C-alpha cells in the first residue's frame, strides 16, 4: 500500500533539478533568449552553407569576372540575382558570407576546444599538485597574459605563415593560459573540500581524483570563459585575416572579405565590407550576450 501512495504522491510534487532551474533562470531575460536563438540560427546557417548558399564561392568555375562589383540587388548578365552584390572577383557576397561564417565558427570553436583541453589539464594539475609544478606553469601563464593576444598571434603567424591550421595553432597558443588561470582558481578552493580528502583516503589514483572528482566541480566559471573566448577567437581570427596573416585568399573568412572590400571603400562601394562586418558583429555580439548572462547566473557572489 505504501508503495502505491508514494508513486501517486511523487508526480504532483514537481521536482526541479538544478539544471531546470538554471534554464528557467536563463529564459527569464528576453534579450538573452534572443541572443541564444541568434547564435543557434547562425551556427545552423553556417553548417548548411553548402546547401543553402546560391553559389559555391570556392568553385572558380561558378564565378564570372564579368559580374564583378555588382551593387546589392543587381542582376548578372544571365539574370542571376545578387541580393547583397558581388565582390571584385564576381563572387556572390551572400554565399561568400555563409562560407566565411562557417570558417569563422570552425576556427573559433576548434581553437577554443583545443585550448580548453590544454589549459584545463595544465591548470588543474598545477592546482592539485601545487609546489614547483604550480610555480612553473603559473609563471608561464603570467608571462603570456602580460602580453596582448593580438601581438603573440601576429608574431606566431608571421613565423608560421598563412593557413587555417596555423591560425588555429596561434589562437590555441594565445588562449590556453586564460583557461589554465580560471580553472586553477576554482580548483584551489575545491581541493580543500572533504570529498577530495575522501577520494584521497580511498587511495584513488591522482588522475581519477583530478578528472572525475575535481574537474566537474570546477566547470561553471570555465563555461563562462569558454563562451566569451569563442567570440574572442572569432574576432581575433577576423583581425588577423584582415591584416593579411590569417587564412589564405582561397578560403575567405569574414575578416578577409572585409579586407577585400576595404580597397573599394573610398570609391563608395560599401557592400563588400559592410555586410560581412555586420554579420561578424552580430555573431560576436550574440555570443557575448550569452556569455554575459551565463556569467551573471553562474557567479556565486551575485546569487546571495
Amino acid at each position, binding site marked *: 500500500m505504501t508503495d502505491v501512495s508514494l508513486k501517486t504522491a511523487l508526480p504532483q510534487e514537481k521536482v526541479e533539478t538544478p539544471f531546470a532551474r538554471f534554464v528557467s533562470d536563463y529564459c527569464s531575460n528576453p*534579450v538573452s533568449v534572443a541572443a541564444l536563438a541568434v547564435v543557434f540560427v547562425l551556427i545552423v546557417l553556417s553548417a548548411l552553407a553548402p546547401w543553402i548558399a546560391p553559389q559555391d564561392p570556392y568553385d572558380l568555375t561558378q564565378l564570372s569576372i564579368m559580374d564583378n562589383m555588382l551593387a546589392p540587388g543587381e542582376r548578372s548578365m544571365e539574370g542571376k540575382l545578387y541580393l547583397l552584390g558581388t565582390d571584385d572577383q564576381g563572387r556572390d557576397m551572400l554565399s561568400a558570407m555563409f562560407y566565411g561564417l562557417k570558417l569563422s565558427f570552425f576556427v573559433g570553436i576548434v581553437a577554443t576546444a583545443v585550448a580548453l583541453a590544454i589549459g584545463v589539464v595544465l591548470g588543474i594539475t598545477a592546482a592539485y599538485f601545487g609546489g614547483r609544478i604550480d610555480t612553473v606553469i603559473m609563471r608561464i601563464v603570467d*608571462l603570456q597574459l*602580460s*602580453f*596582448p593576444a*593580438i*601581438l603573440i598571434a*601576429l*608574431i606566431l603567424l*608571421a*613565423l608560421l605563415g598563412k593557413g587555417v591550421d596555423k591560425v588555429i595553432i596561434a589562437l590555441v597558443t594565445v588562449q590556453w593560459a586564460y583557461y589554465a588561470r580560471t580553472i586553477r582558481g576554482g580548483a584551489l578552493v575545491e581541493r580543500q573540500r572533504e570529498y577530495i580528502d575522501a577520494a584521497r583516503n580511498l587511495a584513488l589514483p591522482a588522475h581519477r581524483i583530478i578528472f572525475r572528482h575535481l574537474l566537474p566541480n570546477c566547470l561553471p566559471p570555465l563555461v563562462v570563459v569558454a563562451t566569451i573566448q569563442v*567570440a574572442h577567437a572569432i*574576432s581575433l581570427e*577576423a*583581425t588577423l585575416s*584582415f*591584416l*593579411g*596573416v590569417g587564412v589564405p585568399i582561397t578560403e575567405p573568412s569574414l*575578416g578577409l572579405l*572585409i579586407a577585400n*572590400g*576595404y580597397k573599394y*571603400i*573610398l570609391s*563608395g562601394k*560599401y557592400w563588400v*565590407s*559592410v555586410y560581412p*562586418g555586420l554579420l*561578424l*558583429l552580430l555573431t*560576436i*555580439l550574440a555570443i*557575448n*550576450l550569452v556569455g*554575459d548572462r551565463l556569467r551573471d547566473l553562474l557567479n556565486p557572489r551575485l546569487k546571495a
Partner: protein
Amino acid sequence: MLAFLIRRIGQSLFVILAMAAIVFLGVFLIGNPIDVLLAPDADQAERAQAIQRLGLDKPLWQQFLIFLADLARGDLGKSFVHGTSAVGLIFERLPATMELALVALVLAIVVGIPLGVMAGLRGESWVGRSIMTGSIVGFSLPNFWFGIMLILFFAVTLQWLPAGGRGPTGHIFGIELSLLNPAGWPNLLMPALTLAIYKISLVIRLAYAGTREAMLQDYVRFARAKGLSRSRILGVHVLKNILIPIVTVLGLELGSMIAFAVVTESVFAWPGIGKLLIDSIGRLDRPVIVAYLMIVVALFALINLIVDILYSVLDPRVRLADSGN
C-alpha cells in the same frame, strides 16, 4: 620599499630576458639566421663571410650571448627595405603611435567615466540599460571594421574628415606630433576613436561597477546625511574611490593599446610602429620585426613596472602583502 623596488625591477629584467630568449629561438632557429640578417640577393661568398662574422659556427648559447650583447648596444641590424638601423626606424615611428595611444586613452576616460557613473546611478532605468548594452556592443565591435565604417561615413559620405594618413605635424625637441598642430587634429580623430572604442566600453563597465558599489557605502550615506550636494558627493567622494581601479587597469591597457595600434594604423595608414610591423611582416623585413618585438617588450615591462610602483604607493596593502610573503 627598497626591497620591493629591487625585486620588482629584477622581475622586469627577467621578463625581458625571457622574451629575448623566445624571440631569439623563434627567429634564429625556425627561420634561417642568414636569411634573417642578410639581404636576399647576397651571393655565396657574402654568405660564408656573414656566417663567420656573425659567429653562426659557434654553439647556440654563445650565439645567444652575442644576440644579448647586440641587444644591450641597441644594434639589431639594418632593415632590408629601408637600409637604415632597425632600432632607429622603430624609434622614429614611435611618437606617432604613442600619440595615438595617449589620445585614445584620454578619450576612454573622458567618455567612459561619465557614462559609466551615469549608468551606475540609474542602473534600472532605460538610460542605464542602454549605456550598458552599448558597452557590450563596444566590446563586440570588430575594431578594424569599426574603423572602416568611420571612414565610409565621415570621409566618404559626409566628407568631413580625411580618410587616412597623419596630416600636418608640429615639432618639439625634434619629435613630430600632430597634437601640436591644429591642422593635424582631424587626421587624429578617427584613428584615436577606433583605438579607444574598446577601452571606452571597459571604462564604462569599471565605472558602473564601482559606482554601484560605492553608492551603498557608509561614507556616501554619511555625506548625504551631512547635507552635501549631490554633485559634491559624486565628484569628490565617489569619483575618488572608483578612480583607483580604473587608473590601474588603464595603465596596464596602455600596453595593449600600443599593440592594438597595429590594426588601427593599418586601417588609417597611420605611420606608427604598428604599420611598420605589418609592412615588415609583409616584406619579410626580419631585423625590423625583431627590433619591434624587443622594444615593445621593454616598453611593456616598463609600463607594468611603473603601474606596480604607483599602485604600491597608492595602496599600501599591496606593498605590505608583498614583503610579508
